[in-house]
């Protein structure tokens, strides 16, 4: 039986038995290559679930939709390891109770779909641990290497050019499972820290602020990068920041649901080479 079949059967059982009220998974999209998030509430609908290598969207963001988990009923969700990490962070930041989740874990390796064993976030700890260990060795994207070798002026110009395209549609924010704030910093206007206008300065500030707020929290699921309608390589900034917190604080975001957020904790002997 394929993983897709197995998961459909499991989803059917869970829904029929009332163990979960909803299954958040993937369904067919507009075109052959597209998959879209679907929300299944009846066991008769499980045939709509699709699981293949095109299922890349991180669905964990839907878990913090207003009211979804407030009735304390359980919800099943299809998650890749990045999704599990995102859930860990959401749980660590008290945004959800991970005991309410039933996880359908999977990963895409090359063109193959691999099932990940486990139902609760804790059971994926080994998978995440191995991701952390392999993280420093992952080959860097060429573009990132290119940017890192630039002078500050060149880098500034590079990012300025990229951010100039931004239209402030906030698709990056909305697609991001970590951006759950009811009122985003750009929407707060007393004081107005960041210009809301989508001119170069406003775009520049917005992208810095978002990158900072994701530092040490981003799980690099790629949702923002794919969502951006003007193709800003947001993944590069987020990757650079993830690299930084891993290298400096040995922090890999989302390893467990009790992990302390990196910027809300400290060690007395943290590095401070740059401080005069």
């Amino acid at each position, binding site marked *: 039986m394929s993983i897709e079949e197995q998961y459909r059967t499991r989803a059917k059982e869970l829904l029929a038995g009332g163990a979960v009220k909803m299954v958040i998974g993937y369904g067919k999209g507009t075109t052959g290559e597209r998959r879209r998030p679907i929300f299944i509430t009846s066991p008769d609908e499980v045939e709509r679930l699709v699981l293949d290598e095109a299922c890349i969207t991180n669905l964990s963001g839907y878990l913090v939709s207003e009211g979804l988990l407030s009735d304390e009923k359980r919800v099943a969700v299809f998650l890749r390891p990045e999704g599990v990490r995102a859930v860990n962070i959401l749980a660590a930041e008290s945004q959800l109770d991970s005991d309410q989740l039933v996880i359908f874990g999977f990963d895409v390796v090359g063109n193959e779909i691999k099932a990940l064993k486990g139902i609760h976030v804790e059971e994926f700890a080994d998978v995440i641990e191995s991701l952390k260990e392999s993280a420093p060795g992952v080959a860097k994207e060429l573009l990132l290497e290119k940017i890192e070798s630039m002078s500050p002026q060149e880098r*500034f110009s590079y*990012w300025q050019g990229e951010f100039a395209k931004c239209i402030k549609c906030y698709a990056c924010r909305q697609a991001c499972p970590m951006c759950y704030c009811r009122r985003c910093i750009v929407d707060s206007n007393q004081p107005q820290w960041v210009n809301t206008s989508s001119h170069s*300065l406003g775009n520049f500030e917005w992208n810095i602020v978002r990158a900072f707020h994701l530092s040490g929290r981003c799980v690099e699921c790629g949702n923002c990068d794919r969502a951006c309608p003007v193709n800003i390589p947001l993944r590069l900034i987020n990757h650079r920041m993830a690299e930084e917190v891993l290298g400096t604080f040995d922090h890999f975001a989302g390893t467990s649901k009790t992990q302390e957020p*990196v910027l809300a904790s*400290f060690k007395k002997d943290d590095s401070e080479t740059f401080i005069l």
Partner: protein
Amino acid sequence: MSEPFEPKIIAFVCTYCTYAGADLAGTSRLKYAPNVRIIRLPCTGRISPMFILKALQKGADGVLISGCHPGDCHFTHGNYHARRRWMVFRALLEFIGIPPERVKYSWISAAEGVKFAEFINKVTEDIRKLGPFEQYTQLIEETEAAASL
């Protein structure tokens, strides 16, 4: 003839250490560069990266951040939190292309009036050498420009 460039620098300092240090520098009649506008905050833990962005947004050529030495925080560990934040924010600014010379961090205690004066002088001199932050100024000027199309 254009006037020589005088950098505009904003300093965010904690009130218990660095601000007192600045006071000491003053009462000890130490001379230091007048380019720095000091903004006093309760603790370095209160210094949000937003402040740095705001300073740049308003046309600062450089930003200084200073507070109590580790272990000396009036609130016991505000500066430890701040230190982590700066570490990350500094890496981000560097990656985005904001030269690290423009945003400087230091620990200055209430007793270090001399260090304060030297720090200010050094940073002012460094930024004077760098010149105005033209790339950022361009962004600012664009916000007041007419539409291009």
